[in-house]
């Protein structure tokens, strides 16, 4: 079975393509990722992502298709 610390504090991060992800709060953000201002338990972060990242296509593609 998969071991995972569901209580560890994560933050929601986003890159320039507006792709969202989560990242351990105590870690420095990888290159090109910035905080969106949401921090909490894993499930809380993922539920935030579900509400705020409604179209998972990268920004460039979204613009191209919906032109």
């Amino acid at each position, binding site marked *: *079975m*998969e*071991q*995972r*610390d569901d209580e560890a504090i994560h933050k*929601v*991060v986003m*890159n*320039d*393509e507006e*792709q*969202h*992800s*989560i*990242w*351990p709060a105590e*870690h*420095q*953000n*990888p*290159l*090109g*990722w910035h905080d969106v201002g949401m921090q909490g338990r*894993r499930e809380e*972060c*993922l*539920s935030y*992502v*579900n509400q705020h*990242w*409604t179209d*998972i*296509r*990268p920004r*460039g*593609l979204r613009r*191209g*298709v*919906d032109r």
Partner: protein
Amino acid sequence: MSNGSTPAADVERIARWNSTTRPFRRTTIHELVTEAAASVPDRPALVSGSGVVATHAELERASNQVAHQLRAMGVGRGALVGLLSEHVPQAVVAMLGILKSGAAYVPLDPAWPIARVQSLLGQLEVACVLAGRAQLRMLFEVQWALPRLRDVLCLEVETAELPVEPIDRGAVRELWDLITGADDPLKAAGFNFRASGYRYTPSDVAAYRDRVVGLARWWLGSGGRVLEVGFGSGLVLQALAPSVDRYVGIDPSVGGLERNRAWAADEAVEVELVEGFADEVAAKVTGPFDLAVLASTLQFFPGPRYFEVVLEQLVSLVVPGGAVLLADVIDPSSGQAQGGLRVPPAYFKDLVAGAGKVAGLEVHQRDPGAFAGELGARYDVVLLVGAGGRQEERSRRWWTGWHVARQPHDPPKPDATPEDVSYVIFTSGSTGIPKGVMVRHEAVANLIDWVNRTYEIGPADQLLLVTSFCFDLSVYDIFGILAAGGSIRMVGDDQLQEPDLLLNLLEREEITFWDSAPAALAVVLPFTTLRAPRGRNTLRLVFLSGDWIPLGMPEEVRNQFPRARIVALGGATEATVWSNFFEVHAVDPAWPSIPYGRPIQNARYYVLDDALRMCPIGVAGDLYIAGACLALGYVGDPATTAERFPPDPWSATSGGRMYRTGDRARWLPDGNLQFLGRLDRQVKIRGYRIELDEIEVHLNQQPAVRASVVLVEPTRHGPRLAAFVTSHDRELTSGELRRFLARRLPEYMVPNRIQVLEQFPVGPTGKIDRRALLAIEQPPRGR
């Protein structure tokens, strides 16, 4: 990013193993195929048992036409188009046509239960499906529950209208002579013919008859002129005819005709009985009528087009203000009468909206408590006949190869970019809901570039296509080989089940390339030792992926096919088919498994610990994949996408992501990875990726199931699924559960072993003791 306690030398070596950057053409998949066609237009592209089906130039023109047709239907960039087809050449034309239109294709397996196909099409809000001819019935049944699905295109049909399904008149007549000739009146009325299932009593059948007669009487008032199609033994006829002004019946069974003529003479009731099939009614019967009745007849029609033809005739025989009563209609969602014509209520609603002379509709659902057996789940429809003349558009449109043939051959204006989605392939999901993985064109372009360059795939190569379109190996099988100017040998779905036939093809034809999960090759290999080898020098390349490769297999393959290079590959649907490879030469007897190998061009692999730090060489950890091979994510599932695709802290490009495979692995000192199995409960059996939780979720939906555990059980014949269920219902059988699952899941997800228990064994931690479960003795049958 911290590399934890990993020595700097290790980090450096791993970085070197991961320095796979190599320029490749960032383009669309179809552009690669088009370019190949320009260089080898007259080489075969699609080959079947009857020879070359299409050259590259022909495939190019045919797929251009499909793309033009799709554009004309409003399909283009950003759209998702379903593909529901068996392995027929038109399916490849369809896929290429979809890509050229700018849309992405979504393969659906015709072998899946209808509910799964329906739910996936609904989940993606697919508006257009390209279907094989054999799948038209399935689409007819699902489309009414899918408000977004508007267009269906079948390339295999060459007439403008879908053909009226043929009826075997001799066989149907014989069957109904047999049924209506039964001595038992219930059997003569078509009840209790099956060996198992509910036994209907005379009062059950009377309740059904009274329902139909009641609806007819209620509609007619007193008197009236009635036409009954398919009167059979006369169940409805004998109850209704005495009280109407005129009663005409038509039925193909001579026995039924004689039986009712005798009844009419005895009872001195005037009825006009005509021998004939439903589609002959307008030719054989003269109207007008106030009511046309089809009672429990519809399900015996050969298909929806046949029904439409009959309905048109009935409506023409009924006066404006009259009605057509369709009694005992079977809704596909009931799961009853697979193979029979099942029509959902939504179909009739569309018919009314559509036009023609059907002006209104009453759907009468039944109270399940008032009717026995399957009758409770059926429904009755009254179609009101109007004067006609309204012309509105139906909500569903059907297109065929006839329409496509009228489109131009020239390439459509390019629309999709390399960053666009090219296909969506479903993987099993832990929530019980399958996840659709979106893969971009350029990720596939990278893969094709790598395979075709590394293994010098060219116009002389021919690949035997043995994999379902729903499995992403088929993505290379189709577009990779075509992009090399090579050809695909197509084999029908029924023949794919015959390993000796596949061996024939390998020996007798010009097949150079085999690509499958190990299990698919494992069923062919035993046949090689049963016959003298001949023509085993053509096969030059064997790709194996998707599951553990038995250690003895490479040697076995080379013994039989001496020229074959054997390549083991790995990866994930989320990282575009394959992203690591290992060419298997001599197998070291000390190996615990065939090494997983190294990343392909522009792919990187990381072995990380729980805190996302690199593990030292030799230390097991979670396997992550990064690079140009990554998928965009899961359709409509941002949370899972965010969770499975975290930021890549080692990426040289800004904002890079990686994919958490859920596999365990470690680096070997020689720079190869060793695969150590699945981390979670996602397993692979016979090459299929299965989430055990998904099966449990479905089992738990069975009302009698209290709890369930699905495990993988090792057996002499390889791993298999075993399900354990606790239930309060002592009558619950494994057979019932198996049928329940079979209606909801693909065949490969239905456990071989299903066992009903009173209680689960519990281990020292208080959790279910899974090992003890597998040790429970299996009863020979039943519970």
